[in-house]
């Protein structure tokens, strides 16, 4: 759609601009302020320049949290994307079956995040949980409060449970936009199931898949509540991801300077990713217009 140039449109955007500026820019300026100062209490601050940034970027603690975060995001993408595609491909396309599938699958997406944590806590505990109890009965040594491996598996399965449906829903929306004629043509040509997937379904899903990958990556990159409720970042620091570490530093230890520098580095990483996301989204809009 061709859009007219009209500077008065700024008046329509102004309320959003002011509101988001209030809730984003002012807090962010506070963070910037802290990140370049040090304090010994009494509200006396003095300039330290880039000291905190150097400290954070060179600290093992930040590297470890970032490493765990990337590993976590990588693993869940590797599981959720193929699983989501596979489920979406085999879902019924129309009728009541499709509606029921959609509703049941979307249910985990609407559960408050701390309740997701609670659900998995109850489900995975060895004494009272269905999963924990079954595994224990099978003789498998599983205890997410003691062993880091169990904790990792719990957190990953929980995230797969929570968010794979998002990938399913997006892929399903992409698949539904393929006209029947494509399939009929493929049938006439005698195309195999694989060929249909590779040359019809996958190209049509390309953009939704890209959106799904980016959304899942970014949301998993800032995951906080679910692992916090289930493992509290433990055992030890095994499941301490970036957000959990940051909140520990800022609220728990009240290390304002390092926490602020940490926030800004974290925010810049996210900003870079957002830019990739934005480019993908708007490139699609342009292609369709």
């Amino acid at each position, binding site marked *: *759609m061709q859009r*007219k*140039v009209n500077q008065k*449109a700024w008046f329509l*955007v102004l*309320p959003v601009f002011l*509101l988001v500026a209030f*809730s*984003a820019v002012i*807090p962010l300026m*506070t*963070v910037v302020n802290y990140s370049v100062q040090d304090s010994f209490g009494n509200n006396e601050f003095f300039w330290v320049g880039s000291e905190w940034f150097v400290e954070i970027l060179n600290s093992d603690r930040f590297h470890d949290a970032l490493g765990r975060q990337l590993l976590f995001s990588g693993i869940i993408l590797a599981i959720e994307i193929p*699983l989501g595609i*596979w*489920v979406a491909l085999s879902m*019924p396309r129309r009728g009541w079956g499709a509606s029921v599938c*959609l*509703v049941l699958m*979307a*249910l985990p*997406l*609407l*559960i*408050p*995040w*701390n*309740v997701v944590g*609670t*659900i998995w806590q*109850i*489900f995975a505990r060895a004494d*009272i949980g*269905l*999963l924990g109890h079954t595994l224990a009965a099978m003789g498998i040594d599983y205890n997410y409060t003691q062993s880091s491996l169990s904790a990792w598996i719990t957190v990953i399965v929980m995230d797969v449970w929570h968010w794979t449906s*998002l990938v399913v*829903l*997006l892929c399903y*929306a992409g698949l539904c936009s393929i006209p029947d004629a494509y399939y009929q043509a493929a049938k006439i040509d005698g195309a195999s199931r694989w060929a249909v997937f590779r040359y019809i379904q996958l190209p049509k899903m390309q953009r*939704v898949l890209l*959106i*799904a990958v980016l959304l899942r990556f*970014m949301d998993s990159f*800032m995951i*906080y*509540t679910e692992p916090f*409720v289930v493992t509290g970042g433990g055992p030890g620091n095994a499941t301490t991801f*970036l957000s959990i570490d*940051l*909140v520990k530093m*800022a609220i728990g230890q009240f290390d304002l300077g390092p926490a602020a520098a940490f*926030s800004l580095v*974290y*925010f810049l990483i*996210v900003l870079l*990713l*957002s830019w990739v*996301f*934005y480019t993908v*989204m708007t490139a699609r*809009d342009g292609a369709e217009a």
Partner: protein
Amino acid sequence: MIKSIRITPMLYIIFLMLPLYWLLTMALKTNTEILSGFSLWPKEPTLANFKTILTDASWYSGYINSTIYVVLNTIISISVALPAAYAFSRYRFMGDKHLFFWLLSNRMAPPAVFVLPFFQLYSSIGLFDTHIAVALAHCLFNVPLAVWILEGFMSGVPKEIDETAQIDGYSFGSFFVRIFMPLIGSGIGVAAFFCFMFSWVELLIARTLTSVDAKPIAAVMTRTVSASGLDWGVLAAAGVLTIVPGAIVIWFVRNHIAKGFALGRV
């Protein structure tokens, strides 16, 4: 062939439902039954846990507080997002692309980054522990979300409608309210649903900005875990009750849910 294909979604749904089933059985058991032995279903189903929540003010006030700030947030978000989304979908203006991107970057911003500054900001202006503070703080990610979703729906409405209305002598205000808004009614519904939902599921910011008077249900639940650590039945019942609002509305948005999660871009 058909049958073998349908097995995958079935298995997937069973995988999704098992933890939920377990939550529900826990909510229907007494604490002694939970801790005394393992059983697949409640032997003596009881509603006592739900009764505890619905009669104890420290529990049900959590639901009321959550509902108040979520509704406030939804109203604020939608009412400021509507004109802005219209501007983005119809006009080009100075800095529009940068502004659109800036909004998105707030949707993607980790709440953990904003926890401390929010706490200080709202404390310093005397709004700490009020519903409006949480509602405003949640605008950080809900306003961008609403703008993006509404823009997606509005771009689907042909521009000729605007022009025809103008020729027919409608002022911009009456055109927007009486003609345009009904046209994107489903879009407004979907945007409102997603604002409601994302504000409802968020814990970190809501917990940081409240202590007593506006404490959300999510924070009440975490407190109970750490304090007694054993009251699993009540905790499960509280969990079940937080799922109910989403579960009720989900049927109405099922066809738009992918669009909502993808920021109006599917």
